[in-house]
């Protein structure tokens, strides 16, 4: 489903990704973690063509992404993305947020799109928020709308970039619940997160990045019990067990 080979990315002189490779099978659930600035976001954004790259190949959901992302629109919603800052369209109601791309990209008729969107909102337990504007929702609700918006396009792959880190502690749970739910349905997912509880219970594989490279890659059991790198251990100590 995803084959990334030897990705290289730099901002001017600063190299951010030093040849990152990753293969993800259909239905696999990957959790990506690592210290701040290690390049997690950049990597994920390269995967769905939001970031040009200086080298390497990306094949995702059946599309080959060119290095300058010229053909990013060919993905046409096949790769869903959920951002840390939600990035809902503030001038549209929740329902319109969901239907916009369905109608403009998938050419779903207005009526059908709204029905589908309402079904999706029901699944997210947001039915009564359909006519609200994003600003009128709590953070957790906003993030659930963002997930719903991506899912409406029936993506083959979902990418999540720290979807819970802008949320209040109590709202984290409602979003993690939705994501756990998705993972049970066999969607291919890459999730950047520091929620180690989630990683442990959901991930097929955990990937640890540091300074633009993949340092460690293992199933959750191995990752938490026997991390091989000192940097990973240090990271786990700081994240997991602060006191």
């Amino acid at each position, binding site marked *: 489903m995803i084959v990334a080979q030897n990705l290289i990315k730099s901002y001017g002189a600063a190299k951010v990704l030093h040849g990152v490779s990753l293969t993800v099978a259909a239905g696999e659930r990957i959790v990506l973690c690592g210290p701040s600035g290690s390049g997690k976001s950049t990597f994920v954004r390269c995967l769905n*063509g*939001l970031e*040009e790259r200086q080298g390497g190949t990306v094949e995702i959901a059946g599309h080959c992404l060119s290095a*300058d*992302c*010229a053909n*990013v*629109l060919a993905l046409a919603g096949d790769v869903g993305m959920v951002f840390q800052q939600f990035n809902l369209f503030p001038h549209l109601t929740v329902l319109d947020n969901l239907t916009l791309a369905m109608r403009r990209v998938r050419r779903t008729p207005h009526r059908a799109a709204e029905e589908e969107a309402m079904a999706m909102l029901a699944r997210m337990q947001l039915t009564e928020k359909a006519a609200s504007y994003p600003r009128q929702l709590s953070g957790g609700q906003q993030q659930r709308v963002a997930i719903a918006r991506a899912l409406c396009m029936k993506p083959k792959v979902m990418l999540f970039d720290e979807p819970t880190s802008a949320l209040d502690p109590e709202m984290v749970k409602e979003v993690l619940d939705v994501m756990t739910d998705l993972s049970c349905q066999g969607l291919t997912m890459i999730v950047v997160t520091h929620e180690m509880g989630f990683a442990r219970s959901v991930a097929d594989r955990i990937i640890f990045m540091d300074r633009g490279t993949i340092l460690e890659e293992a199933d959750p059991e191995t990752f938490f019990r026997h991390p091989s790198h000192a940097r990973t251990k240090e990271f786990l100590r700081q994240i997991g067990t602060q006191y």
Partner: protein
Amino acid sequence: MSYEILLQSIPIVYAGLKLTLIVTLAGFVLGQALALPLGLALTARSPLLRWPVATHTFLLRGSPLLVQLFILYYGLAQFDAVRASAIWPIIREPVNCAIIAIGLNSAAYVAVIIAGGLKRLPPGQAEACISLGLSRFSRMRDVLLPQVYRAILPSIGNELILVLKASSLASAVTVMEMSGAARAFTAKTYAPFEVFIVAGLLYLAIGFLFGIAFRFVERRIPGVAAIGKSGRAAQPRPQALGASS
């Protein structure tokens, strides 16, 4: 278009340059000086302070500067009481009237900018001051105003250019600055184009110099990137809409 007239009009416009600069710079400085108290009054809690100033700035921003200039220059002079008073020696001189009218007008605009800047500062700044026990005066002088001025510096630079352009109205009260000189020249020779082009270029050149000066000042002042951003500086990303499509 004739080159002979073009050359002829250069010294004419140049003769107005000094007056343009005097009116611009003095008007600007007067405006800035008055803007601060007005701006503070606009954000004052007491409506007794706020309302008169709000009305004043509204009237000055809502009517054409030319009319204000006429009222100050010709209107006030009609009253014997004014001519007998202490301000007469000042507003007797056309240059002073132009400077005062432009300064008052600019002050109204800048006051609103300052008030806006104060309101846009994150409330946490004032709260931090209170919890440290800083007096109101010190809060303004040491913490809030430096940030406001840093944030509105580009607007103030803009204001200088606007005042430069407004100075072209001074000729309505016999102050023959550049554009007035240009119009007088046109009236004398009936050749309208050349002299306006020369004047235009000079205005552009002065505005350009002012712009450079302000950018220089801006770069010399450290600190505050943008109002309201505390914590981690926002990561710069490429343009709002990617150029890839």
